[in-house]
């Protein structure tokens, strides 16, 4: 293994924490990265080498080679990659209710692909209640038709800690090189959040963000009801996709009351259960 001075920063998720916003920004602003001696490995490219972690485990060499190639481009001192599927599916029927059950194995394999470079790993997170709601809505958005109560049966509410993820990341790069992004900062607006996200990835990414991304709208309560009723009756993925865009365009929370899928009592229970841990973890990103 040839040691390299070029640093590699990989953002590994979690899902529903502004990942698309970050990735679109990095794709569109390659020149600003280049001005800072940084290069971005695009999400689509990562997807081919990572999949949901399965491709990475099958062939870690492919990702390693790609990182080496990008790091070898003259004038590059920082390589940035972001792909939230790298840590696998958040919930799996055979995952024993654990959050991201494949993450430890996938992250260890990622470590092999990064060997020889100074590494920093970034994890973006949001409070567990918001994460569950948002991920459920996403599953409906993509064609699911289970009620929230039924969907929640696969989740062990006592095993939603992000700490195992952080520990797995620390195993690869040392706790001092793990960074946590608090999605709660999205309340500042997309531009403020992106600036915070970029600086957390690396202080050199000190761009002043002016970004007018199309907002990734969520389904309203009405849109959610329509999706749940319709999805099971749609025959092909293409048609489900068309339906998804239709509902997103006409029945988003921009035009109708937002979907409140989680009972307030459960929300409070989750906050109480995980709030201290969340504050401790996000304190790492300060």
């Amino acid at each position, binding site marked *: 293994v040839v040691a390299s001075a070029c640093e590699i920063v990989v953002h590994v998720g979690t899902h529903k924490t502004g990942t698309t916003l970050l990735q679109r920004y990095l794709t569109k602003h390659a020149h600003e990265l280049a001005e800072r001696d940084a290069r971005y490995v695009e999400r689509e490219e990562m997807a081919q080498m990572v999949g949901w972690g399965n491709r990475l485990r099958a062939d870690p060499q492919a990702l390693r080679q790609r990182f080496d190639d990008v790091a070898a481009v003259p004038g590059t001192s920082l390589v940035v990659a972001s792909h939230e599927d790298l840590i696998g599916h958040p919930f799996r029927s055979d995952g024993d209710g654990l959050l991201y059950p494949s993450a430890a194995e996938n992250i260890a394999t990622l470590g092999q692909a990064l060997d020889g470079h100074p590494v920093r790993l970034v994890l973006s997170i949001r409070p567990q209640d918001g994460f569950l709601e948002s991920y459920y809505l996403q599953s409906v958005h993509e064609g699911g038709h289970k009620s929230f109560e039924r969907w929640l049966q696969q989740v062990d509410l006592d095993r939603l800690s992000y700490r195992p993820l952080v520990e797995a990341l620390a195993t690869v790069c040392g706790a001092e090189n793990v960074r946590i992004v608090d999605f709660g900062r999205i309340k500042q607006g997309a531009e403020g959040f992106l600036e915070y996200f970029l600086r957390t990835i690396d202080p050199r990414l000190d761009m002043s963000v002016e970004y007018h991304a199309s907002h990734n709208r969520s389904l309203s309560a009405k849109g959610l009801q329509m999706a749940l009723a319709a999805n099971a009756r*749609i025959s092909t993925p293409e048609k489900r996709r068309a339906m998804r865009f239709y509902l997103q365009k006409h029945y988003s929370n921009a035009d109708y009351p937002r979907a409140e899928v989680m009972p307030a009592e459960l929300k409070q229970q989750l906050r109480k259960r995980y709030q201290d841990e969340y504050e401790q973890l996000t304190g790492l990103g300060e």
Partner: protein
Amino acid sequence: MSGRRQAAPADLVLHVGLPFAGGDVLRRALALLRPQLREHGIAYIDHAELAGLPNLAGWRAVGDGHDPKLAARFGQDLGALVRGARAQCAAGERATVVISSEWLLGAAPLGIADESMLRPDAAAALGQVLAALEPRRARIVLYTRRQDRLLEHAYIRRVMGGHPQPPRTQFPFRLRPVLDLGDLVRRIAAVPGVADVVVKPFELRPDGVAAFVTDFLHSVGPAGLLDLSEVSALEPGRIYSAEAVRVSQAVVGHMDTHDERIRWRAFAVKTFGVPNDDEEQTRVFSDSVRLSILGAYRQLNRDFFGEYVPGVPRSTYDGVAPEPTAVRLGRSVRRAVGTARRAVGTARRRLLALRPGRR
């Protein structure tokens, strides 16, 4: 496909439906053929032009004579429309006028209005038109459809209009034999001024748009004289598939406004629609529902087909016997040939458009 009582050329030909019986594609074809038709002394007026007249949609009022002023104005405006169409023909006043609209029988959508009788205002509406135009010889061309398909399409339309309830709720009359095709033909034939009625069961139509249009033109005159290459390239219209209906049943109940439903219908036909010659994909009723409807109409249909289209197989009107494989394969091949023809026609039109001197 043949009808009874076809006779001498008419100076007025009214294509009156029924709904769901090829009216849309026929009108698109006739609109394309309009210049050629004019050269052959035929002035074509379609549904869209009639829709510009006052109160066509309020036909019941006009037909019943509740509003004589409205009826008089309708007559004047229709007369002016026909004179204008004739003026664009070389034959002028001698031109044959062809009008196509389901509204000529007093209503277009089939449904609740037909609860006690198929097209209850047919005679009144036709009578108004003929009184206004005073043709020398008026021919009525009626495409019929089997009652199970009429009800099925009417049901689809109701669902897409925001009523997802099952057919037994929306069409409690579905098993009463009120949609009597023979009775409708007799009522039309009895209207003063009607010289003959050409009856064409849609189930027996020839395959392909060009053949269908040619068959219609036999009732008008110049069937063999027109160049139908552009017509051959016409895409069949898209209609709601059974899947569109299933999805709509799930969502339309959540919609609050008319605009939402209009927007949904456009999306549904684009996303879940199928070509309207795809009979299989538009079947919403189960076989048992279909059979019970046809059972209710068995005797009426036997009499009707026996009188107007003798010799057709009973399965045409009597049941849902599965088609032999050879017939299904034959239809698939014909459909593929039709698609290829349309593609060639489109390419030809594009090439013609590229010729020097054409814009």
